[in-house]
């Protein structure tokens, strides 16, 4: 019916993992049914699409309507009919479903106007939420594969690499190695075949940007890889994707097939004579497999153990051949750099950290989700202006960046600029862009213990200092959290930290002490409270925590009683409630639910 002259309208239903869990697919089907039923009677020709994650999963499911530029948040199945009747049939905006700024009470019709989106700059995430990832024409319509054409027909391999060098782009997977330099090195080896790899292992807990790109805009990765392959003279690529990311695997495979049909991949791409194909390898769920040499060994069908890096992968990587490995987000930037030029890109962000970076804002922050901002943004702006600050009006304590190899940054450093070098100087690192925001109810000793526990499980065990050192540190932290900490434990931890980071083979071991080092450095008081006073100020370590209700503040609202899973709270409405210590399982639900700060920690 597209031959009709009716104006067009498209409904975009977010079907990223966050919204899916909140039943966005039901909303999609119900809307679709209503549209189909109404058929040509609708004055405006209406299309409906599913998209990848819009970034603000906290307020999902999200339904956007173009070209009206309306965005509805927290849509329920029961809202669907009203959306259809009012917005689709009559072009009317439903105020109740618009984004609500909880501070000013203002509502915004377009999602681009609210604080969460307004300050962002989308390059890697340029298409996500705007296109149907299963439809290659959506990607093409927004300029997709134009950069590949430009590279193939108007640029030389050298000039492509030169643009990427000029852009200043540094790898988004963790180490921040300059991408252009890596390509240039690899191009220098006259040894074929060469391989182009995509790291979609995303092992860093708390980060989900790579997942979002693979699910929401797979062609941007494919196009980036194809451009690189042409510059290096490589004909074979591999995308290594976590097997747990079922939707990412599906959307990437589908996109690869569609790209082949459209001649953007495969033999004789667009008639240029250049061949390049990408195969998908599903990862086995080991954190260390995200490390470059372990990843290659895993693709070869072996156990994913790192090897010493005196031989670099650009020279001898996969099957001993020259190999370029880049992260998902790195790849997604490439088409834009080729389109607009390296110089344009290098003008964004900070001098030695150019461009934008995607961060996942998670933890005790109000607007949890994915954001893309220019590098160099102040931590404070990221957490408070975009992220909306801390939940439940609590106090900010720290933000953890860089994943298990990163560190915790305290309140005193909130004015820090977020770029590769500043984060490293503060004792943390950029990592893949996970930002885990912590408040006064987060115990820093427990956080250190958490990461060591993670690393103890994930160490491949090849190096003795990594394997045994992490285990020993974990034992000490376990005993501190259990109230059995001894004077001298802090010094002992620091000593082991030094040995482990010096004597381990790969970056997992080398950086494993970071969470311990930074929490001791910035939060020694909390360690001392555990060791000396046998108290956990955050009320997290169960052995050191007793909850009680302060009669001064208790209004008898009963919220604690209602939310206690153990039946430990008793009290009559409007009078003082109290906790039976014998029944209390110390889950903290009462303290998190009490609006009057009446539940306290002893």
């Amino acid at each position, binding site marked *: 019916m597209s031959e009709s002259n009716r104006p067009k309208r498209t409904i975009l239903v977010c079907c990223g993992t966050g919204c899916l869990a909140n039943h966005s697919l039901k909303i999609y089907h119900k809307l679709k049914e209503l549209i189909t039923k109404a058929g040509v009677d609708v004055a405006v020709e209406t299309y409906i699409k599913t998209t990848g994650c819009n970034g603000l999963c906290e307020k999902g499911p999200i339904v956007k309507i173009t070209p009206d530029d309306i965005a509805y948040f927290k849509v329920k199945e029961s809202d669907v009919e009203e959306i259809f009747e009012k917005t689709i049939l009559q072009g009317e905006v439903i105020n109740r479903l618009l984004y609500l700024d909880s501070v000013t009470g203002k509502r915004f019709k377009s999602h681009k106007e609210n604080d969460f989106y307004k300050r962002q700059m989308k390059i890697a995430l340029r298409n996500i939420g705007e296109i149907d990832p299963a439809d290659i024409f959506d990607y093409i319509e927004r300029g997709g594969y134009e950069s590949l054409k430009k590279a193939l027909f108007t640029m030389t391999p050298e000039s492509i690499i030169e643009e990427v060098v000029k852009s200043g782009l540094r790898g988004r997977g963790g180490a921040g190695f300059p991408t252009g330099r890596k390509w240039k090195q690899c191009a220098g080896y006259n040894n074929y075949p060469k391989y182009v790899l995509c790291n979609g292992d995303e092992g860093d*807990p708390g980060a989900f940007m790579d997942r979002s790109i693979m699910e929401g805009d797979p062609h941007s990765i494919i196009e980036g890889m194809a451009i690189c392959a042409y510059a290096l003279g490589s004909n074979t690529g591999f995308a290594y994707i976590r097997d747990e990311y079922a939707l990412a695997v599906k959307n990437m495979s589908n996109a690869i097939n569609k790209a082949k049909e459209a001649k953007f991949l495969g033999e004789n791409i667009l008639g240029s004579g250049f061949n390049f194909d990408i195969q998908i390898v599903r990862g086995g769920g080991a954190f260390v497999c995200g490390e470059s040499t372990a990843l290659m060994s895993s693709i070869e069908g072996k156990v994913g153990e790192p090897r010493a890096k005196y031989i670099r992968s650009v020279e001898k990587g996969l099957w001993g051949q020259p190999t370029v490995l880049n992260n998902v987000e790195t790849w997604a930037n490439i088409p834009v750099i080729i389109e607009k030029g390296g110089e344009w890109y290098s003008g964004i962000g900070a001098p030695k950290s150019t461009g934008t970076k995607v961060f996942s804002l998670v933890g005790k922050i109000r607007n949890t989700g994915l954001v893309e901002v220019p590098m160099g943004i102040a931590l404070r702006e990221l957490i408070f202006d975009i992220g909306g600050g801390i939940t439940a009006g609590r106090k900010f304590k720290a933000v953890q960046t860089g994943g298990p190899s990163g560190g915790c940054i305290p309140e005193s450093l909130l004015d820090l600029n977020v770029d590769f070098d500043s984060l490293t100087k503060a004792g943390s690192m950029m990592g893949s862009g996970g930002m885990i925001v912590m408040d006064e109810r987060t115990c820093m000793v427990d956080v250190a213990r958490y990461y060591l526990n993670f690393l103890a499980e994930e160490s491949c065990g090849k190096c003795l200092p990594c394997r045994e050192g992490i285990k020993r540190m974990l034992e000490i932290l376990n005993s501190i959290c259990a109230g059995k900490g001894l004077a001298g434990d802090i010094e002992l931890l620091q000593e082991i930290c030094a040995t482990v980071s010096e004597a381990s083979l790969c970056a997992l071991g080398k950086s494993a002490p970071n969470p311990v080092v930074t929490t001791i450095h910035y939060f020694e008081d909390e360690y001392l409270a555990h060791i000396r006073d046998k108290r956990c100020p955050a009320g997290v370590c169960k052995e050191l925590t007793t909850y009680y209700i302060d009669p001064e503040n208790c209004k008898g609202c009963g919220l604690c009683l209602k939310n206690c899973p153990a039946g430990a709270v008793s009290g009559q409405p409007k009078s003082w409630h109290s906790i039976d210590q014998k029944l209390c399982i110390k889950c903290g639900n009462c303290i998190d639910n009490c609006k009057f700060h009446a539940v306290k920690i002893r």
Partner: protein
Amino acid sequence: MTVEKNSQRILSYTRDVMAGYPREQRFTLAMLQDIQKKYKYIPRESLEQLSDHLGVPLSKLYSIATFYKALSLQPKGDHVIRVCDGTACHIRSSMVIVDELAKILMIKPGETTSDGKFSLETVNCLGSCAMAPAMVIDETYYGKVTPSRTREILNEYGGVDCE
């Protein structure tokens, strides 16, 4: 019946999986993943068969199967509950959810209930950190789980008989 029949079925499924890939060592993991998906663990029969087919020693396959977390050598329950204990979930009290489930099911993480109905596991990040604490049962995601909601969720799967 059934041990023998079952074993036959496993062998025939493994043959199908092997037929789907070129006979090269680099597809070992992919084959193991397919078998894991079907049976929720890797039966010994499959390992032996793969070892013959690929010419890879059984010991090497065992070390691959134990190295990769997504693979299991132990059979799992009908429903696999995976509670996220990634960082974002951890600081939003995911361990309280694990403890509560462990209490209701009377098993520890890594174990299966005696009636074979539920397995309980913890995982590092489901990529749904915005909905922390998150968990997934089989393929269904649950966000913002609270201790009091866990029993309700289990009921969707027929709940717990014992008690």
